[in-house]
């Protein structure tokens, strides 16, 4: 951010004067195997027009048939945010002409969407926020237009028909920063549920923002603009911040904000009005005649509810209640796989005899050792992860019970990770069990003292800090296995004795 000082303070003054009102529309591509109304693959990455079928190409004579996985994803998403799931909902046709829309209409939902209401909870700099939802509905994605050489554009229909959930918030968001955190929370949530991978850069999660400002204390909303083309959290934040400044400047000058759609241009750092002359679309909605209304039974809904995982915000609260720092709890909940792994470690630890695997300890190990070694945190759910939650719990138990020193524990972990062996295995095989029995420590200390008469004399002569030297020598003598505390006590006793 490199704005001249004067603008910044002016910006602060403007923020104090105006309240920002933002509503967000997020399109989440559902990670089903096939498309919402047809059987071709919904996966990303096929060669252009290599993943189509007559239905998603809008060929004459084709009919849509609804994918059950898309419905379940929408229902679980709605339940996770506390929406009311309509027992009956309808599909509708939304008409406009555009090359990436093969039928000239999109099958979406209008009057009776599958989910109504709901709330997204998230934190902004530690403070709890919640944003109410208007609705969540199902619809099909359009294809992609590529602007090619002069005078022509290309169309690829691979994406046409991929299932989407459109999540519409009420205008409860109050800053660009909140908008970014809302999106982050939504991303985490959809990944938790396994319904979408939430990747804004790849386009599996897209966001449009409706932005307006009004004088603080005013009742009526200001005129809003719709901002599109923001493909990352940073872009969302920057675009909204720019748009707020732009609107405030207009209002300060006594001018009006025009209701229009504007595109964010990240390279120039500005929003620009779309040049299309038909900005206000008459979509001519009517009920989709090829799909009867969708009915969801009580049993279906109960099963869906039972399949929900513990959700990120609930887990965050539980972890902090168990004594974890907000920082650590935050890290653990960013991905469901991390939280699941953590929960499994704690559970495995609790099942061990004489357990001493506390949440705090488990958090340390999971964050600093396990997470540090994977490039994608979702690997924590894979069956072939080198160190399972149970194996980690065993290791932690060995360290906490004193069998292994803390430092050795980390070395053992590294070996467990590289060699895929259990801690118990490695410790037994290498005889790494921390030497704690006072007899062996005593002997080791005596051997060391006997081997270093000069240092002994100097210690007794007053150089007390040579204790460290002796401790180190005992550790070396025992191959690092001596319990440092025990060695320390024994040495002090032996060294301070007379002869």
């Amino acid at each position, binding site marked *: 951010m490199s704005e001249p000082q004067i603008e910044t303070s002016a910006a602060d003054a403007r923020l104090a004067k105006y309240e920002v009102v933002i509503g967000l529309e997020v399109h989440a591509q559902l990670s089903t195997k096939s498309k919402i109304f047809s059987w071709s693959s919904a996966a990303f990455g096929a060669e252009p027009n290599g993943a189509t079928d*007559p239905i998603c*190409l*809008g*060929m*004459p*004579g*084709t*009919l*849509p*048939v*609804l994918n059950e996985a898309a419905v379940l994803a929408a229902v679980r998403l709605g339940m996770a945010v506390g929406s009311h799931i309509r027992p009956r909902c309808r599909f509708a*046709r939304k*008409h406009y*002409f555009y*090359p990436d829309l*093969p*039928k*000239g*209409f999109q099958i979406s939902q209008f009057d009776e969407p599958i989910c109504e209401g709901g709330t997204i909870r998230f934190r902004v700099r530690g403070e709890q926020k919640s944003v109410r939802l208007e609705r969540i509905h199902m619809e099909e994605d359009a294809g992609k237009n590529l602007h090619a050489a002069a005078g022509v*554009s290309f*169309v690829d229909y691979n994406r046409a028909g991929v299932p989407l959930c459109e999540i519409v918030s009420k205008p409860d968001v109050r800053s660009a920063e909140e908008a970014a955190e809302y999106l982050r929370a939504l991303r985490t949530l959809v990944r938790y549920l396994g319904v979408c991978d939430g990747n804004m850069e790849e386009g599996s999660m897209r966001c449009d923002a409706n932005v307006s400002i009004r004088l603080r204390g005013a009742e009526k909303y200001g005129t809003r603009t719709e901002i599109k083309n923001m493909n990352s959290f940073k872009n969302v934040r920057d675009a909204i911040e720019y748009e707020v400044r732009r609107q405030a400047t207009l209002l300060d000058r006594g001018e009006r904000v025009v209701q229009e759609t504007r595109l964010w241009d990240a390279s120039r750092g500005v929003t620009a009005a779309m040049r299309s002359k038909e900005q206000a679309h*008459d979509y*001519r*909605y*009517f009920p989709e*005649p*090829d*799909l*009867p209304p969708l009915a969801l039974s009580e049993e279906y809904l109960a099963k869906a509810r039972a399949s929900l995982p513990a959700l990120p915000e609930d887990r965050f609260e539980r972890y902090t209640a168990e004594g974890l720092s907000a920082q650590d709890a935050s890290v653990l909940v960013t991905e469901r796989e991390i939280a699941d792994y953590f929960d499994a470690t704690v559970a495995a630890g609790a099942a061990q005899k004489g357990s001493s695997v506390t949440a705090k300890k488990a958090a340390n190990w999971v964050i600093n050792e396990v997470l540090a070694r994977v490039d994608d945190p979702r690997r924590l759910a894979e069956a072939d992860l080198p160190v399972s939650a149970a194996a980690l719990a065993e290791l932690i138990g060995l360290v906490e019970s004193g069998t292994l020193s803390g430092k050795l524990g980390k070395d053992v972990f590294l070996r467990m990770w590289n060699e895929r062996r259990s801690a118990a295995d490695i410790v037994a095989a290498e005889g790494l069990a921390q030497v704690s029995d006072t007899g062996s420590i005593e002997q080791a200390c005596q051997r060391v003292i006997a081997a270093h008469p000069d240092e002994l004399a100097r210690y007794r002569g007053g150089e007390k800090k040579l204790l460290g030297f002796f401790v180190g020598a005992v550790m070396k003598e025992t191959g690092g296995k001596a319990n440092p505390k025990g060695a320390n006590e024994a040495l002090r006793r032996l060294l301070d004795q007379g002869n």
Partner: protein
Amino acid sequence: MASLDIKGARIATLAEGVRSGKLKARELTEAYLDRVKTVDPQLNSYLLIDGAGARLQADAIDKAVASGEAVGPLAGVPIALKDIFVTKGLETTCASKILRGFVPPFDSTVGQRLAAAGTVMLGKLNMDEFAMGSSNENSSRGPVRNPWSLAHVPGGSSGGSAAAVAASLCAGALGTDTGGSIRQPAALCGVVGMKPTYGRVSRYGVIAFASSLDHPGPLGRTVDDVATLMEIIAGPDPRDATSIPAPVGQYRAAAKAGVAGLRIGIPAEYFGAGMDPEIDAAVKAAIDELGRAGAKVVPVSLPHTKYAIATYYLVCTAEAASNLARYDGVKYGYRAQDVRSLEELYTRTRGEGFGLEPKRRIMLGTYVLRSGYYDAYYGQALKVRRKVFDDFATAFTQCDAIVTPTSPIPAFKLGEKTADPLQMYLADVMTVAAPLAGVPALSQCCGFTKAGLPIGLQTIGPPLGEEVVFRVAGAYESRTDWHERLPADPSSSSPNAAAGGVS
């Protein structure tokens, strides 16, 4: 070529002949192809004749029969499809310039079922463009002429299907009925045509005109022919979400079961001003015949009949405007030349590619779906549709089947009604209510006017009541011989001669 006499041939007879080896499928196919070549130039019922494909299919059947392999129940029977059914690898156009050159990469479900039953597909039949019309004068490939009189229309939109069946240019055909487009041409051409219950026959592969009103269905010379085709094409289809999951009925058996004890309802609203007196007389005679056959005739009322046309033209045009939005020159079909912008691509492709009637209906449909107009027009029409449905539901508590004329007028002359679209629409008065309600209805011949033009009798049944419809139609046919009459073959020298009358 073969001296096989195929004029008026019945599907069951042909199937039995081929199955028993007495008839060679190839000879049969050649006989029909020959007839098409000789007769069809005067009628223009075929848009595409697939001689090569038909011969291949026929040869395969002969080979199978000869080696004792099992063949389908209709093996060797030559049929043809209205050009609204997509056919894999064969051009499918809906008789529109905007789909010229479109070769679908997939087949319709009903086409696949007929092929699996062993039928030989001779080709694609002419129709009103995008199924919009009641006279087959809206085709971009020229009108179809009525085999009973070349100066008259065959009806529409399945005019090609009805004419081809009437002239024995195929043993049976498929058409579609949205406001009467199977029944009315069947009536005007003196053949049998059925609009099944909505959802009874799959719409997958049927190019959409009005999704909630389109009904694919069969046409044939006799009730048994149509019942036979129905047994093959009907049934649930996972590719059509509006397809009824119920099992297929025994339609051929029903057609032989008679009408003793059935109550036949006669709605007053279908008999009144505007009806041709010869039609009125013929239909009333038919009703009397049904009474003699053992049915009890009762009066019923369908009070919202007079609102059915308005309702139909609001619902079907809205859905049509929507279904035809995909024709834009991008993915298939016609594309305007030398366009300078995307806008021009759309407006000129569609302006040049669509005929006048589709454009008219697209305009009306777009208008009534506009925000602000929806409730008054389309919204209101959907509610009146419910009232039409309720009328039938009430009537069917008082009777088992309803009998009416199919069309208030016999075939009219080419060009007679093309100036005023509203006049053309009003001719649908007797056929539009059944598709609005989704109830099954069939038309069969019940006489001829003095001028030699066929008169149609319509039987309407309750939802999934095909069997009762077939009982009535079968009983009537068994007691009459209208279905035995065949039109004279047109003389090849004068396509405009008003050759008509009865052979």
